[in-house]
């Protein structure tokens, strides 16, 4: 995307510079406006749109048997996570997920609007009081991922962060069994 943008930018700049060159073309409305002004942007946009929809589609939660469901509840200024697989289990500030398995995070808020964002796992999704939004994330490798809240929420916003811990199979089972806090 960056390359495409740079090329277009360079093209416009060259046209600008050439305008200062001595020349005596007749005014060519069709060339400038119809070809460059209309056709060119439309072509670029169609390409971009197709790409966007394609990628967006891939990021979408899809039904599957082996999807793990968790719930993320934002409040000023902490996240509380609960797990569909273990009744009554909650963690604060740390979300545990299995690695290599798609996870659906049901995001909501109990006070103001927050946003759930783990940059390396997925895009962000807002936590809105009274609404539940579902975000699909998946960690390829076990490890620790940093997450932040990305919607301004007043004074504690600066420090409002959390971590996601992706476990391998064995660890995940022991988490479910209550052996990891």
């Amino acid at each position, binding site marked *: 995307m960056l390359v495409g943008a740079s090329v277009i930018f360079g093209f416009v700049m060259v046209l600008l510079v050439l305008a200062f060159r001595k020349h005596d073309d007749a005014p060519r409305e069709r060339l400038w406006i119809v070809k460059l002004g*209309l056709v060119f942007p439309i072509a670029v946009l169609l390409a971009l749109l197709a790409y966007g*929809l394609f990628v967006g589609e891939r990021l979408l939660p899809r039904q599957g048997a082996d999807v793990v469901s968790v719930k993320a509840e934002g409040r000023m200024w902490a996240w509380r996570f609960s797990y569909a697989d273990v009744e009554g289990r909650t963690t604060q500030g740390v979300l545990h997920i299995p690695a290599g398995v798609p996870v659906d995070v049901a995001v909501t808020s109990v006070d103001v609007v927050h946003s759930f964002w783990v940059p390396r796992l997925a895009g962000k999704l807002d936590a809105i009081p009274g609404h539940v939004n579902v975000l699909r994330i998946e960690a390829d490798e076990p490890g620790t991922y940093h997450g932040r809240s990305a919607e301004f929420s007043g004074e504690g916003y600066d420090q409002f962060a959390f971590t996601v811990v992706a476990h391998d199979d064995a660890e995940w089972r022991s988490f479910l069994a209550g052996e990891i806090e």
Partner: protein
Amino acid sequence: MKALERHRRMTETWASDPGFKGWFSTVSHTDLGRMFLVTAFFFFLVGGILAMLIRAQLATPHSAFAGPEIYNQLFTMHGTIMMFLFAIPTFEGLAVYLLPKMLGTRDLAFPRLTAYGYWCYVFGGSMLLFSMLFGIAPDGGWFMYPPLTGPLYSPGINTDFWLIGITFVEISAIAAAAEITVSILKYRAPGMSLDKMPIFAWYALVTALMILTGFPPLILGSVLLEVERAFGLPFFQAELGGDSLLWQHLFWLFGHPEVYIIFLPAAGVISTVLPVMCRTTLLGYGWIVAAAVALAFLSFGLWVHHMFTTGIPHMGLAFFSAASTLVAVPTGVQIFAWIGTMWKGRPDLRLPMLHILGFFITFVIGGLTGVMVAVVPFDWQAHDTAFVTAHLHYVLFGGFVFPILAGLYYWLPHFTGRLRFFRLGELAFVLIFVGFHVTFLAMHWVGLLGQRRRISTYQPEDGWTVINLISSIGGFVVALGIGIVIIEVILHAVAARRSARNPWGAGSLEWAMLTPAPAYNFASLPHVTSRNPLADNPDLAVELAQGKGYLAAPSRWRETLTVEVASGKPDYHVIYPGNTRLPIVMSAVTGIFFLSLLVKFYWTVPVAVIGVAVLAWRWVWELGRKDDLPAQSIGHDVELPNTVAVDHAPGWWGSLFLLTANATFFGSLIFGFAFLWTVAPGWPPPVWFEPSAIELGLGILGGLVAVVAMRLALRANDRARSPLPMLGVAFAGTLAVAAACGLLMLRTPAPAEHAYGATLLVMGGYGLFHAALVSLMVVFLIARVSRGFTSPVRRAEFPIVVLWTDYLALVGAFTLLAAHLTGYLA
């Protein structure tokens, strides 16, 4: 009569009161345009100082300069001031100053309204400044999302300053927009058909129409949020049937068009200045007009792209993503038309041209990153990071500040009658340009590294330190550049050589006059036959000064004429009101209304409302006359009827566009009702409204009776019979609507406990307010008839009241149906 003698006599009629006292009573568009621009520039400096404080804070990690509670006020006020108190008023000021001059006439349609709008802006802006000086400024970010800004999480007065101050300022935007629209459509030089209008007027027209339809959703949102905060009626609280998403919709219904409301006037400046700098005419005038109109339409379909992360359904995302990228098409048309114009002419690197080049480079980058952000998967990553802040500044600074600086240097000789003497501007340009790109390229970069926007500090481990420092240094370089601009403008105003008329060799009419501009603009009005009248006839200025145009005879009234909208054929003769303090007094009383709400001093609220009503009554009363004015000669053997003796007077046109804004407001309210009903959690409400066929019938029938009676009154007046009986019937009709709406409000179930009741209460209040307003208008008309201000000839006031009565009947019926039908359905 000699030109000099004419100048003297005209000036006598048109001049503002001498000295600084004249500022308070002036209604001249030249004065008010300058005042608008100076005030807006002052706010630009305030916003700029805030930006410097922000950059100082972010320059180093762990900065102890400001804690979050101060930092939150800093960026909220920076954004708010730049958007509402700098950008929009700059457009208003530029349009107020330039339009009548470009359109070849003597003033705007409603001179006193210009003044009223200006003072509302000053008073509203002062409220916000005051809050900042005392450290109680708004701190919820410039888009003020509830519930964070709601009563539970922001109990302090900070948020109220925003909601009430900005609404007060918006009055001036709506007033200016209605005025600009009517002025462009009606107040032009004879012969200037729509397709011969200067391109700036087209842009201003589109912008004004966008303000009329774009601002009401924000005003509604502010009203609802303030009502929630002050009186506990829930609109945005999920537990009580409200939904904070409603605010986001209302805000961005305004906020996205806002970006184009800011960009289009700047594009108008470029389309005006660029051809002159290239010694040619604009390429593709028709295409550019079409592109501006297309942009306006498209921009209203795009608000949702600011809400991509709120969990909008997938199909919605695809649609809005597609539509968002589509705006690049009309923008592309304009950009290439401008570049084509440069190819067609011979561009000269004079100072305004430098700023235009600055615009091109900056804006194209901003547009490209904008398209990137519009692609959903990318936005999910970039949303709410410094990347978005940087993108937004490329668009706003590139798309607005550079063009405005180009315009400043271009019209400076017009403001002062002097030519630039010191060459500081070139240095200033380089500093601003380089500084800007350093600042914001760096911010793009840290944004991609994950720095969120609106954080007051960060950790050294984040690895953003160096980039932020570079960005801050860039910011201070920009400030230095702006400082030099100010110094140059001041030097210019006090000491520079006198300029000849039309120093740039422009073709548009604002240069066909003395500079600085005389109070009356044109001693006589030109007859326009092309888009560049001054280029066709370089002696035009002298000929007009000698009285060779229309309305050349000085009179003791301030006279001008209006034209048919499309053709530009002269149709009416206009007499303007003279200098008066009424506008400033009325806006001060309006200010008392807002101030009382702010400090919760409620018993002065009705006093202020009555005060405004009394002043408004006087405002309109002053305009009438008791004798039938014969058709007036405007020279060249043309005679025109005066505006008191026509069906669609300027007041009718003004009402039409005011009602357009008003209808958008009401439509947004209905949208809010439907949105809460279908989307908000916590529905259905615990109790429904108890429907009543009698009340419903009373209100709808009352509206119909008023509508019919007003028409009969109008007809009676036309046939020289007394309209009084029918006016009485119309009055009774409006009272019936008022009663039905009042009962609706009284019987609304538990408005503080559920958004359903709260919304009905507001709708009922809206209906009641309009019923009261229209009944007041009918009473006014009765008084006018009794005092002999009307006659079969002097009929202009009837159609205006007819228009408002129709509107009342419509919104009354909608309101009552919304309440009673939902009661029946449940």
